[in-house]
C-alpha cells in the first residue's frame, strides 16, 4: 500500500507535512534534514527539487532553490542521495518539482527512479490537470505515484470536484491566493474558504499550505482540514542553523504542541 494512503487511513487530523529544498542549506543536508523531520514528529516529507525559475514560490523558497543549485544539486544528484533512504525513513515522502527539470530528465525515467528509491507521491505545481490526464496519468499510476493537485480560493467548485475525481492522495489547499511565504496569519476570508471546501465532502483528504508557520496557524488550519504543510517557515529555521537536528526538532515540537 502507498504510504500516503496508509497514513490517511490511520490519521485524519493534525497531519503535518514539511517542505524543504533538497541540497539546502548544504548539498549533503538532504538526508539529515529528512531524518530530523521524521524524528521531530512530522507525518509527510515534501522534498523540493530546486529550479532556476520557481514561479509559484516566494522569496524564501526562491532563495533556497538558488543556494541549492549553487551547491550543485540536480535531479541526478538528488536520486543518488535518495538511494537507500528507506532504510531510515518510513513516513511518506513526496517530491515537489517544476515540470521542466522533470521533462528534461524524462518523465518515465523520473517516475521509475521515484519508485526505485521509495517516493510515494509527486507535486508538480506547473503541471495542469488536463496535461496530466492526457500525457502522464498512466505513467504515475504504473509506478505507484500519487499525484497531488493544488486548489486556491479562486478555484471553482466544479474544478475542485474534477480535481478530487482525478487524484487519490491528498488535495493541497493554497490558503490565500498567494505564492509561498507571502503572508502570515489566517484571515476570516481564508476561514470562510476552508469551511466552504470542508463542506464539499471531498473523497480526498485536504492539507492546507502557504502561510502556516507556527502552532497557532497549524492548529487553526487543522481544525478545517486534515492538516497542513509548512514550507517557508521551515526553510527559515534551517537556513542559518548550526545544529540542524536540534533546531528542526525544537521547531517541529513548537508547531505540534497543542
Amino acid at each position, binding site marked *: 500500500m502507498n504510504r500516503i494512503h496508509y497514513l490517511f487511513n490511520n490519521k485524519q487530523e493534525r497531519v503535518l507535512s514539511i517542505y524543504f529544498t533538497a541540497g539546502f542549506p548544504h548539498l549533503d543536508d538532504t538526508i539529515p534534514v529528512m531524518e530530523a523531520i521524521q524524528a521531530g514528529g512530522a507525518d509527510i516529507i515534501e522534498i523540493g527539487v530546486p529550479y532556476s525559475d520557481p*514561479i*509559484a514560490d516566494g522569496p524564501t523558497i526562491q532563495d533556497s532553490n538558488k543556494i541549492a543549485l549553487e551547491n550543485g544539486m540536480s535531479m541526478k544528484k538528488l536520486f543518488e542521495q535518495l538511494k537507500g533512504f528507506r532504510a531510515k525513513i518510513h513516513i511518506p515522502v513526496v517530491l515537489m518539482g517544476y515540470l521542466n527539470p522533470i521533462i528534461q530528465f524524462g518523465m518515465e525515467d523520473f517516475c521509475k527512479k521515484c519508485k526505485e528509491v521509495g517516493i510515494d507521491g509527486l507535486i508538480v505545481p506547473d503541471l495542469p490537470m488536463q496535461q496530466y490526464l492526457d500525457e502522464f496519468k498512466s505513467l504515475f499510476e504504473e509506478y505507484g505515484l500519487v499525484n497531488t493537485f493544488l486548489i486556491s480560493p479562486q478555484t471553482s467548485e466544479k474544478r475542485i470536484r474534477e480535481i478530487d475525481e482525478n487524484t487519490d492522495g491528498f488535495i493541497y489547499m493554497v490558503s490565500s*491566493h498567494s505564492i509561498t511565504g507571502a503572508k502570515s496569519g489566517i484571515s476570516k476570508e481564508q476561514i470562510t474558504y476552508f469551511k466552504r471546501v470542508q463542506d464539499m465532502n471531498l473523497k480526498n483528504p485536504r492539507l492546507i499550505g502557504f502561510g502556516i508557520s507556527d502552532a497557532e496557524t497549524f492548529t487553526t488550519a487543522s481544525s478545517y482540514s486534515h492538516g497542513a504543510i509548512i514550507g517557508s517557515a521551515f526553510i527559515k529555521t534551517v537556513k542559518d542553523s548550526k545544529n540542524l537536528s536540534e533546531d528542526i526538532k525544537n521547531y517541529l515540537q513548537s508547531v505540534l504542541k497543542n
Partner: protein
Amino acid sequence: MIRVDEKGFYGKFGGAYIPEMLHPNIEELRDNYESIVASEEFQQEFQLLLRDFVGRPTPLYFASRLSETFGAKIYLKREDLCHTGAHKVNNTIGQIILAKKLGKKRIIAETGAGQHGVATATVCALMGMDCTVYMGELDIERQRPNVERMKILGAKVVPATSGSKTLKDATNEAMRQWINNPVDTHYIIGSVVGPHPYPEMVARFQSVISEEMKWQLKEKEGRENPDLVIACVGGGSNAAGAFYHYYNTPDVRLIAAEAAGLGISSGKSAATTVLGTPGILHGSKTILMQTEDGQVVEPHSISAGLDYPGIGPVHAHLFDIGRGEFVAVEDEDAMKAGILLSRTEGIIPAIETAHAIHALNMIEYRKDDVIVINLSGRGDKDLETYIKWGGY
C-alpha cells in the same frame, strides 16, 4: 497551416503550463478574449486609438540609400514612429481595453528594454488605471530613461532582483504578483510568450503591422507580398506581428534575427534556436536555453529587449518546421548595423532592431528582391549603450 489550435498549441509548442492558482485568471481570459476582441465596440475603440493615439498606420518607407548599399529593394516598416517609440504599444492598447471590459482595476507588466513597460504605463495613464511594472535590476541600470518615463507616467517600477536580473526574472516576478492578486488585476504580457491565450492574443494585436504592410506594399509595388520579411526576435512580438499575415504564404521568406550576444559559443548569448532545446518556460512549451538538468540558462545580449532565454511558441514552431529562417547576430555587428542605418537613412534604431538590419549581411537574396525590415523601435532609449560602445 500555421495557426494556434484550441488547446493553444502551434504544432508541438505552446499550451498553458501554469500553477493551478493562475488557472482561474487564464480561464477567464481564454473564455472571453475572442468574443470581446471580435465585438464591434472593442474594434471601434481599438482602431480609433491606434489611429489617433498611436499614430497608425505607420509608414512603409522605401530606404533608397540602404537599398543601394545592399543591392535589393528595402522597405522599412516604421514602428519606431509609434507613440512611445516602438511597436509595443499596439499590444498594450489592445490589452488595456480588454482589461477594462473584464472589469479589472489594476495592471501589472514585465519589461526588458523598458519599451513594453513604457507602453503599458502609457495606456494605464490613458485609462486611469493603477500600474506596476516589474523590471530586472540590471535592465533598470541600462535603460534609465525608460524607467524615468514610466515613473513620469505614474507607474510604479519594481526591481526584479533574482537570477540574471533581466527580462526572464521580471516575468517570473510579474507572474508571482498575478498569483497574489488574481481577482482585480490583469497581467499585460508584452511578448508572444506565456501561457495560452497570451501568445496568440499578443500576436493578433501586433498583426496590424503585417496587415498594413500588405496594402502599403500593394500601393508602392503593386503586390501585397514582399520576398522577405526581416524582424528581430527576443520573445518575438514584433516578428509575430510582421510575419502574421504571411505565415501561410510560403513565397514570403520569414527571417528572424536573434541575439548572439558575444558569440554563439561564448557562454554569453541569447541565440535560442541555436543553443536551446524544447522545454517549458513561463507557461508554454517552447525552445529555451537550458542546462541538461532543465535549469534555465541566463542569457546575454547587449540589447535588453532580446536578452531572453526563450522564444514565443509560434517562433519555435516556425523554426521547427523550417518556415522561419533564423540568424544569430552578435552584439558588435548589431551596433555597427545601428550606425549604418543612422548614417544611410538618418534613423537611429533601437539596438534590438539593429539586429534585424545586420541580418541583411547574413542571408542570401536576389538583386531585385523586395525586402521589408520591421523597424520595431527607435534608439533614443539606447543612447547610453551607443555612447558606452563608442564605435562611431
